[in-house]
């Protein structure tokens, strides 16, 4: 069954981020695949998610977990075939789940045939598909992103005896988007997948598409021209398909990526995420309200993407030095937990496996303005393995049961793509889907519940937000409103019970209905509305005038 591409579907979506390799292995080779993923679609449907974001699955030398693509129109043999992908896509659509795939547009693998041709000689027809230079001094004002591994944004190519430009690893040469042929070819790649039926793309590393001397080579006007060109083609030929920007920038710098509803439909709100962790630990709403105050309005059809954790490190690029030091001290005391400018840990270990804090963070994720993304495994509280290199510690096999390899694969444990989690706290014997399905009070059951409630009202996806500023700074309170529907959200960021007085006079006469239990709370009057709220507790109230 084909799921109709309906305009704006992403605004009310709940996105589940999955790596094919890590989810389920159907053929016992130790690596997750599309057939395995398709078998787990019922699980995702039951969880309540409405979209799946797949990490790269194209053929690749896998030196950067698939973000180094060597063939854009195929499936990595370890994950199956294009036919397997089609079957998975169809199965997802049958269940009303949309599929977003990665478009690693900024760069390819150095093993991609395009690059092999480009480097073969200086007069190769594909020479101009990448950014070449005789010196490594051009674009000197450009920062290096992977500080831990790269010394320069230029790498020497001994074959064509010149330098090529790369913003990420040196084995990931940047494509030259000044070349119209490259732009056409990348659109053809997108068209290929859209014709197969995918519902949208997450465009990787978009700020870096174009380079210009004397600039930071980020967020350039010409980059926006490229995006507008792609968006127009998408709208004209595949209306309803969605483009999501991965641009780790300040909100004000991100705003242009929405354009006049003619660039991206969605963009990640990177600076909010570390501030949610900061606010929780400081027991102070200030970091959260401050960044959201700095977040500009976006066009009506556009949407922020919110997340707590993902496949990368918890990035601390968009914080001040003082905030970064604080985050490291609080969340990554062990230096092995740090990578580049971030923290490579999963949600549950970051929060000391404290169920109350995990719930509160998910509560905020689901109620702040934007579309929430759940990283696979976080719905059951999976742990991480900081002793695996790079970001692999947060990409370990999904834990389905307490049995062989946690139910991920029937292969010998030694042959798995990554060692499964084994420790007594986060290992698959302790944390797995099967056991949590059996308990009404498990984290998994709770996640299903909150997702169901979130989906019960469009106010969370599309409503406005107004912050209340009660004198108690440990309480983060806001009102979401859409049409006649109003929801009051009150979060206690503190480890201690709090008393709070809310100025709700403009909603005088309404009664509050707590959305999780359905209980009625007293009517709002002229006096400040007094609430007591337990440690790390939160309330969602629907306001009703009866």
């Amino acid at each position, binding site marked *: 069954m084909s799921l109709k591409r309906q305009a704006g579907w992403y605004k009310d979506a709940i996105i589940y981020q999955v790596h094919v390799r890590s989810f389920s292995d159907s053929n016992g080779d130790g690596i997750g695949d599309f057939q395995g993923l398709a078998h787990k679609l019922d699980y995702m449907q039951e969880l309540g998610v409405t979209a799946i974001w797949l990490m790269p699955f194209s053929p690749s030398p896998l030196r950067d977990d698939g973000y180094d693509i060597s063939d854009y129109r195929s499936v990595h043999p370890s994950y199956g075939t294009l036919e397997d992908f089609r079957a998975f896509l169809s199965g997802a659509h049958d269940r009303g789940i949309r599929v977003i795939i990665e478009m690693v547009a900024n760069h390819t693998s150095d093993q991609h045939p395009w690059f092999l041709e480009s480097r073969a000689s200086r007069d190769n027809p594909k020479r101009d598909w990448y950014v070449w230079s005789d010196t490594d001094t051009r674009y000197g004002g450009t920062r290096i992103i992977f500080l831990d591994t790269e010394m320069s944004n230029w790498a020497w190519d001994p074959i064509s005896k010149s330098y090529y430009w790369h913003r990420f690893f040196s084995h990931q040469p940047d494509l030259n988007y000044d070349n119209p042929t490259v732009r056409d070819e990348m659109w053809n790649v997108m068209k290929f997948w859209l014709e197969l039926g995918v519902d949208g793309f997450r465009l990787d590393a978009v700020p870096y598409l174009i380079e210009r001397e004397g600039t930071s080579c980020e967020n350039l006007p010409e980059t926006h021209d490229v995006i507008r060109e792609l968006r127009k083609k998408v709208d004209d030929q595949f209306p309803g398909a969605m483009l999501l920007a991965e641009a780790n920038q300040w909100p004000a710098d991100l705003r242009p990526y929405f354009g006049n509803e003619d660039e991206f439909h969605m963009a990640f709100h990177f600076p909010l995420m570390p501030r949610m962790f900061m606010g929780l630990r400081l027991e102070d709403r200030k*970091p959260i309200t401050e960044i959201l105050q700095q977040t500009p309005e976006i066009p009506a059809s556009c949407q922020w993407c919110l997340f707590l954790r993902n496949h990368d490190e918890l990035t601390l690029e968009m914080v001040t030095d003082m905030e970064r030091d604080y985050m490291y001290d609080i969340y990554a005391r062990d230096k092995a937990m740090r990578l580049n400018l971030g923290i490579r840990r999963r949600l549950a270990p970051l929060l000391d496996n404290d169920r109350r804090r995990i719930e509160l963070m998910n509560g905020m994720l689901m109620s702040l303005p934007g579309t929430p993304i759940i990283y696979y495994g976080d719905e059951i509280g999976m742990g991480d393995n900081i002793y695996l290199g790079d970001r692999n510690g947060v990409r370990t096999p999904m834990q389905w049961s307490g049995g062989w390899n946690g139910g991920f694969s029937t292969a010998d444990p030694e042959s798995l793509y990554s060692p499964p989690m084994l420790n007594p706290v986060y290992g698959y014997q302790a944390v797995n889907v099967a056991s949590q399905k059996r308990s009404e009070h498990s984290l998994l059951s709770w996640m299903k519940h909150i997702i169901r409630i979130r989906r019960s009202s469009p106010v969370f996806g599309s409503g406005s937000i107004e912050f209340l500023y009660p*004198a*108690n700074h440990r309480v983060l309170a806001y009102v979401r409103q859409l049409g006649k529907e109003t929801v009051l959200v009150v979060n206690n960021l503190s480890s201690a019970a709090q008393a709070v007085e809310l100025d709700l006079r403009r909603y005088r006469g309404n009664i509050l209905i707590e959305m999780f239990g359905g209980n009625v709370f007293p009517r709002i009057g002229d006096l400040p509305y007094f609430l007591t709220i337990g440690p790390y507790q939160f309330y969602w109230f629907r306001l009703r005038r009866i």
Partner: protein
Amino acid sequence: MAEETLLTDDFLRQLIHVGEVDILVGLRTHNNAKTIEPVIRAIQAGILKCFPRERSVIVNADGGSLDRTQELIVGASIDDVWSVSKVYALRTLHSISTRYAGSPEPGTALRTILAAADLLRAKACVVISPDSTTIEPDWLQRLIRPVYHDNFDLVCPIYSRQKFEGVLMQNLLYPMTRAIYGHRVREPYASEFAISGRLATDFLTRETWNDERTRIGAEICLTIAAITGNYRVCQSFLGPKAQPDRSASDLVAVMRRTVGALFTSLDSNFPLWSTIAGSQPVPTLGSQSEVMLEPVRVNRKRIREMFAIGVAELEPVLRSILSASTLSELQRIATLEVSEFNYPPDLWGKTVFEFAASYHKSVISRDHIVQALVPLYRGRTLTLLLENRDGSGEEIERKLESLCGDFERLKPYLLEVWADRK
């Protein structure tokens, strides 16, 4: 425990909003609108700069200001600190204010602050004077750090002073506290200090708040409570301290608040202080005391007159307080011209101790006893001015040390008059 009646409902509501804190900065104000703004800014900058991660609050106990003192404190925004000091706030910094009941009184204000610190479970409580216009943000660090990081319970300040500032401290409070309690605390009566949460709670729960003399001299009582309670005491160098404008008539009130409280403390602490001989230095962070040598204009003739008139007019009172030999010697000194005037340190020590003993026996009204000390103190001050007119900082320090030595040597005399006097 905070006493119920001490905190108004409104103040309690404000405290609930603030919640548990690590650091509480206390202010005691009464019509300080002229000076409070730079003080608040320095406090905010100091907290944000030195303790950005700590939960902090500024609590003002106001004695009924009629100017805009309270509004200026509550309205001080941390955004102003960013524009001046480029210090970014990681977390919320509350500024709250309350008008305590009764007439303006630093002791009641302190008690209100301690009650707030107790309720908010502050680990460190620092009190800053609202007229300390020379305050630097670093003062916060110098006062709080020893409590917060090094487990001290009381941090007293040391200031750079003009050589004739803080004369009461140098002439009486420091030498006597040192001789009595055996700890060399340079500013036992301080307008800036920091205390630990446990000392705050202990001091707050003492019965002594019901005694007016203790209440009005709460600062010196706090120092004495820390020393006698075996709390860890240290001193921290803050730098120059602006001397607030005070009229001469304030001296009696100041003496009551300080000397009266010190004398009162001797009653209940006799078993302890009577066994102490000599004195121990207390840990001092930063520089030692510094004396600035800017010339000061003083009317020496007028001071001599006030001394001589006091000795003459108060003779009946002094006769009931002092020994015959001491009184006779004072009467002799009262006849001297300024050029020959000398109130020697050992005689000053004997005078003070005889006053303390008479205060203990309450030979006359205790207030009158303290009041009668005022002209004699002026006489001793004149000697200090004359002796140190051209003295260097080192010389002044040496003489102060010698005076303290005299007080310590005379302590057996205090024990003697304490026991023997009728």
